[in-house]
């Protein structure tokens, strides 16, 4: 009994200690915390909100790119405003962005030196208690305690896995350790207390680069970042081993051995009445670069499908097979403002090893604001066996022409019959 009581006491005391700590931290930090609003100039009303925090004494505020994305793309339509803890408002100017890591730097005018957040020198250790700050749903500044759970696995661009509820509106808010040093920036949530943070070192890099050479044009800066990011990604993919793997009974497909591409599989082996036995392997890059609410890029999907006819003739098999391949779509969301329509080429293609004969389709569309970046789609359907088929397909968003062609070539040569 005694032991039980003491246990309760420990629990109570530790939780009250945490609350006290959070409260103390919040009071200490709140003068440097801001709510950031995008105001539509024509209507005078806010069109999006987020959070931000000051990182220098001369008024540089860090937030998420996606909080101010509308302004970055349409600077004439919006203005950016801050609201501090005392209810003061003022205008902000956009200084620099990191579109890949979803960060942005804005500047407020300051009359005197101000308090600001210290950026941490070290990464937290697993299980460390962290505090996320922000203004969820325009309800007022809050502090949310949570736990550092390391970097998200299988992620091409590092994200901290934070156990604690982050809600919309907290985007761009800082996450601090118990010493009030920033270790990350709120960026996304996948519900049920699973939150994601941009590691603080990305912010440090962005800020240092900004101090060295401020960007001339935000759009050009974004274009460069997108170009560099896809170069890094495709180089990593082309340099990794592509393992030949069997799919279904007779197909050989490549599995790209990099941690950030994850694969899933399915088949209809359990459906007794299916006319075609299908096995599907689906691999994708779990990455999606936000440009605007109607335009995402940076994603990649790969799909392989094998089909085996059961009790139907070749003619019917090919009719049903054609229905399967006639409706491929882009892997990313994009609109007229940002991309052209797709243009496609198709032909019958046999690799030099003559291991397969395919009808191959290649489509691409160009980005309007970011020169030399494209979305590509490839779809190939084998046409050399009467009652078996392999479909190989990929989409890549935001890729340069040489990278797209190099990847396509390697991909085409990696799919074959056993």
């Amino acid at each position, binding site marked *: 009994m005694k032991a039980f009581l003491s246990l309760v006491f420990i629990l109570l005391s530790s939780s009250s200690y945490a609350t006290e700590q959070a409260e103390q931290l919040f009071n200490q930090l709140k003068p440097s915390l801001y709510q950031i609003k995008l105001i539509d100039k024509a209507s005078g009303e806010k069109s999006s909100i987020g959070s931000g925090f000051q990182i220098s004494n001369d008024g540089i505020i860090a937030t998420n790119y996606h909080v101010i994305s509308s302004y970055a793309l349409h600077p004439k339509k919006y203005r950016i405003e801050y609201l501090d803890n005392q209810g003061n408002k003022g205008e902000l100017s956009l200084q620099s962005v990191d579109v890949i890591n979803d960060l942005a730097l804005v500047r407020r005018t300051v009359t005197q030196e101000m308090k600001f957040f210290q950026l941490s020198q070290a990464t937290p250790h697993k299980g460390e208690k962290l505090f996320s700050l922000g203004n969820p749903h325009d309800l007022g500044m809050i502090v949310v305690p949570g736990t550092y759970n390391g970097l998200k696995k299988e992620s091409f661009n590092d994200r901290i896995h934070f156990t604690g509820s982050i809600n919309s509106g907290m985007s761009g808010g800082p996450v601090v350790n118990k010493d009030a040093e920033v270790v990350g920036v709120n960026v996304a949530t996948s519900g049920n207390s699973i939150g994601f943070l941009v590691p603080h070192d990305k912010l440090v890099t962005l800020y240092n680069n900004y101090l060295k050479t401020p960007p001339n044009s935000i759009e050009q800066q974004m274009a460069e970042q997108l170009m560099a990011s896809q170069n890094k990604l495709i180089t990593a993919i082309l340099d990794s081993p592509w393992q030949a793997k069997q799919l279904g009974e007779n197909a050989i497909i490549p599995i790209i051995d990099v941690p950030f591409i994850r694969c899933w599989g399915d088949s209809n082996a359990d459906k007794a*009445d299916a006319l075609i036995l299908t096995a599907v392997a689906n691999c994708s890059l779990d990455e999606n670069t936000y440009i605007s609410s109607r335009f995402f890029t940076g994603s990649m999907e790969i799909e392989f499908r094998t089909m085996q006819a059961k009790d139907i003739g070749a003619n019917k098999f090919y*009719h049903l*097979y054609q229905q399967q391949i006639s409706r*491929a779509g882009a892997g990313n*969301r994009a*609109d007229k403002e940002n991309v052209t329509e797709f243009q496609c080429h198709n032909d019958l293609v*046999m690799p030099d090893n003559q291991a397969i004969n395919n009808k191959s389709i290649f489509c691409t569309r160009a980005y309007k604001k970011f020169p030399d970046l494209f979305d590509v789609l490839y779809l190939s359907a084998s*046409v050399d066996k*009467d009652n078996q088929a392999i479909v190989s397909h990929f989409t890549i968003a935001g890729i340069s022409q040489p990278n797209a062609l190099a990847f396509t070539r390697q991909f085409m040569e990696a799919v074959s019959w056993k």
Partner: protein
Amino acid sequence: MEVKSMEIEGSEVVAESIKVKEIIIEEISRNHKLLHRHKLSQQQIHIGRDYHNDIILADPHICPSHLSIEQVNGQWQITDNQTVNGSFIENVNEKKHVADRHIINDGDVITLGKSQLRILFTDHPVEPTLAFSPFESFINLMRHPIALLLSIALFTLIAGGVFYLNTPKDVNFSQLLVPTIGMALGFALWPAGVALVSHLSKHDARIMTQLGISFAFFNLMWFSDFLESIITFNSASGSIAPLFVMFTSIVLAFSLFWLNGYIGFHMSSKRRIIVAASITLLLFGGSYLVQYSKKPEFNPRPQYDATIMMPSFLITSSASVDDFIEDSSKLFDKTKEETLKK
């Protein structure tokens, strides 16, 4: 031309003293379709609603003794008997005028009441004889009950086959029967409709012939579709071969409509070509317009040709990966040009 006809009339005057000239009176409908034709050889012709007349017209707007036509000095003259609604000469290139005392010319049209009469003389020129078109034997073949039955059966069989091939489930015979027969009946509506229209416009309906011809062409269109699939499957994008096949299907449609017109209606060959061309244009242009109007302002989905067929239909050799990459790389410049367009 006019001088010549005067001369002919002059020579007629000489002949008249010997015997009474013959005259042809045609009752025609408002749109100049022939209803009745009378050939008369008498000095005086009475026209009206009562039963004394030589030509009895039932039109209630015509008086019992409406008008008479009389041969005087080799010429025919109209006398209107002070009728309630009058009589008028209504020729194509003349103003409408009162018919009383009018000297009749060949081809004059007299309006009385709501009816019309056309007066012709025996020397009225006629159209040259229409030769049978070379399609006549084909038409006669297709009209034959056995040929008709065969082409409908073939059509139904193909329709059933297409349904079967495109159904992703197991289907039995009776499940195929309903849509197939429905489709055959649906396609029979066209020849039936054409036959109905030709019947209503006082032509021969000739429904068997229309059915025979139409189904023969529907089968040809199935075949051209099939040919189109094979060609698209075997050719790379940008090839012009599929365009030829598209052209074939337009020609087929035009020929069908031309034959429908030839069978169902008497019209000049020029007019028949215009009618057939208009229907073809309506069909293809209309379906293009429908597609065009449905097309969204911006299509986020790629539009590509996914035609695949079983390996037996694969007749060309395949390109190499290098060629494919080379051809695909051209797309990048094309889309980049698009971005420059505003």
